[in-house]
């Protein structure tokens, strides 16, 4: 479904990615793990169109999408819950979710079914549908960000550090729902610093370090791999 080949991306003066390649097959949960600064979020931003690579390609559902505008890429069936959640702080929960449906919604198309699905996944959100987003807790905002992305009926869901700043219990609940979403047919590309959680839910994983992929394998084999620990905490 998603094929990223030999990405070289610059952030101002620095080269953040030195030839990163990975792919995601339909139905999988694939994770990119690595220490902060390794290039995980940069990779995600390049896929979603916020960054343009100086070299390399990104193909989604057979089409080249690198260099295209984010608005256009989103309409092809790709949605993102970004790092830091970035919910629209002055809008209510319901409004945040509604605006997530922008990619496919034409005119008066009803979104009630999609809303119901999200509320079933995250009953907390249903309870607070008229609450303003800025006043919600971190965990609730994360659920809202994921729900908003789901409203776009994506084929591929990009999750950028969903566990950031959340208590372990909330992270557990969140990841249970992430597995559920995947079982309902959404392919997921997950970027996480919390390697254990990511490796537990994903089928395959890539370990990034200093802008390069240094390890790639099925997650069962990655979980105990010494390189993973070394990447975060040194040998």
């Amino acid at each position, binding site marked *: 479904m998603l094929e990223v080949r030999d990405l070289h991306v610059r*952030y*101002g*003066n*620095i080269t*953040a990615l030195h030839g990163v390649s990975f792919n995601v097959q339909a139905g999988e949960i694939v994770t990119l793990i690595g*220490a*902060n*600064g390794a290039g995980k979020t940069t990779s995600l931003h390049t896929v979603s169109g916020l960054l343009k690579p100086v070299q390399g390609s990104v193909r989604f559902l057979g089409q080249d999408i690198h260099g295209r505008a984010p608005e256009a890429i989103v309409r092809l069936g790709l949605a993102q819950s970004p790092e830091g959640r970035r919910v629209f702080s002055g809008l209510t929960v319901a409004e945040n979710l509604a605006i997530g449906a922008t990619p496919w919604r034409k005119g008066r198309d009803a979104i009630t079914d999609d809303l119901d699905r999200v509320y*079933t*996944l*995250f*009953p*907390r959100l249903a309870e607070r549908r008229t609450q303003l987003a800025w006043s919600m*807790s*971190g*965990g*609730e905002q994360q*659920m809202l960000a994921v729900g908003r992305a789901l409203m776009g009926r994506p084929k591929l869901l990009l999750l950028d*550090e969903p566990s*950031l*700043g*959340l*208590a372990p*219990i*909330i992270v*557990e*609940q*969140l*990841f*249970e*729902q992430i*597995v*559920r979403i995947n*079982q309902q047919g959404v392919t997921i590309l997950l970027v996480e*610093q*919390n*390697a*254990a*959680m*990511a490796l*537990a*839910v994903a089928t395959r994983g890539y370990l990034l370090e200093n802008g390069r992929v240094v390890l790639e394998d099925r997650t069962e084999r990655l*979980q105990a791999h010494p390189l*993973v*620990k*070394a*990447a*975060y*905490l*040194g040998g």
Partner: protein
Amino acid sequence: MSRGLMQKFSRPSWLAGLAAVLVLPALVPGQYAMQLVNLGLISLIVVVGLNFITGYCGQINFAQAAFWGIGAYVTALLTLKGLSFWFALPLAAVATGVCSLLLGVPTLRLRAFYLAMATIAFGEIVQLVLVHWESVTGGTSGLRNIPGITLFGHTLTGHREHYYFLLAWAALGLGLSLRIRASQIGRAMIALRDSEIAAEVMGVDTVRTKMLAFTLSSVYAGVAGSLYVSSLHYVSPDLFSNAQAVLFFVMLVIGGAGSAIGAVVGTAVLTVLPEALRFLKEWYLVLYGVGIILMVCFLPEGLVSLRQRWTGRRRSATRAAEPAPPVDVAAPVVTAQPADARFLKARSAMPGGEAWADAGLNVQAVTQRFGGLVALDAVSLRVAPGTVHAVIGPNGSGKTTFLNVLSGAYVAQSGSVQLAGTELIGRRPSAIARAGLSRTFQNIRVYKSLSVLENVMVGAACHQPAGWRGLLAILAGTAAQRGQEQALRETALQALHFVGLAALAQRPAGSLAYAQQRLLEIARALATRPRVLLLDEPAAGMNPQESTRLMELIVAIRDAGITVVFVEHNVRLVMGVSDTVTVFDFGKKIAEGTPQQVQADEAVIAAYLGRPRQRPAADPANAAGSTPEPDHA
């Protein structure tokens, strides 16, 4: 006079320019044109003044026309009462200076936009007063028969005599402006424009510097008003309008804001052009507006930048643009003579003398909240003097917030931070810098408009911040002041030598490669002679060779007696160079010890990698939220 300026033009062109200026009255056709030239000289003084606050400091100021008017009317009223021009002039300058203080003190601590609005409002009020306070100002008809200027017993008459007189004043204003630019205060102004927070942490009191600039601007305008009124013998309010203020602004920007020469070019263009295009009548103003829009789109840095583009293109045509020489990786800094760190060790110049060295940090129960979010939760730690202390932790754990609280960018709600007994919380960043704590930034904040050397000189001036007295000394060009400038230069060069950038001293800071800019920030921070140095992700974006070089540098800094605290993700660097490591998670300290101890600590591993776990079974009975759980924060 500024060295840089004299270097840009060859001697023959200097002499030619001087000759042209002196001979000008002979070349100008007719009285009307001569009057125009004189008006241009007066405008030049106003615009050069505006350059201080708007060009150097980057703050928008629409009050120049009002200050000009105040200077003019004060002089007119005083000379009509019989006072000599030579007494009226300084009084007018004082009047405008006081006005600028009244206006500036409340607004300069706010965002730049507020100064723009306040100066517009001030301008409107001044014009209203000038028009309606008829008993004093003469209302719309203004004041007439204002006495002229007497010089050595001779009263100036005719446009030609006034020309040379005004020329002298304009040259004086320009010269002083260049002198300020080449001084510590000029560098501080430009530094604060390029990055206000990075200027603060280098010891620049940004509010006071802005105030100095604003007052200078107003005094220039006041003097210009005085000259205007005594040369023309007549004044009326319609000249001192907001439209005129806008015109001054445009003169500055069209020439090139931030450049005194730009002021000359812009003033010349906008003095001649309206006359040359007079035949267009009302269409002139339409053209004026369209011209501004086009200039902003295509030449935002003003006409002066044309010259840079042209010479830049010529230079690159004759030879390939030489890249900045790479940091010399092969020569480790530790083999540089230990004497090279002498500028760091020269404690006698520091407050407290020898006791300046060997200071540690004592952090107690610091809590920092942003709205409902607790970024730091009662954090306590000690940094032992003369050690390298790393702060690590996963994303969002509070590390950068911690550095920001230490350096004064945030004010913690509770707790205390003591540096060798001095409480830091609640102090301005510039005061903290003067207490001996300096820092670098994660997203690099070098002063791009200044050269590499000038960047470091800003840091070197940390403990001698220039105030009013310093300004006067600079203007007077005293020997003591020149000596001080030389000392700053030497300290800065030593700091650059220490980090290995001395060869790049004259380059504009913005042209350096990324890793070099990081080293520049370190040199700049070291030039403040800190007791504690904070480094915020110094290795971000560096390749392995550059990180190794950085490690050596940090060790050398520690060996010179400076305590180093740094935030970093690069594990090799942290483990290789730190004496102590503190680990944060969720705003709390979760572990502390030697690098080896911390590496093996279970809590640390769990914080970064998470605990090993089974794949969560997405059992319908376990849908999130069905069991009400207490939420975090």
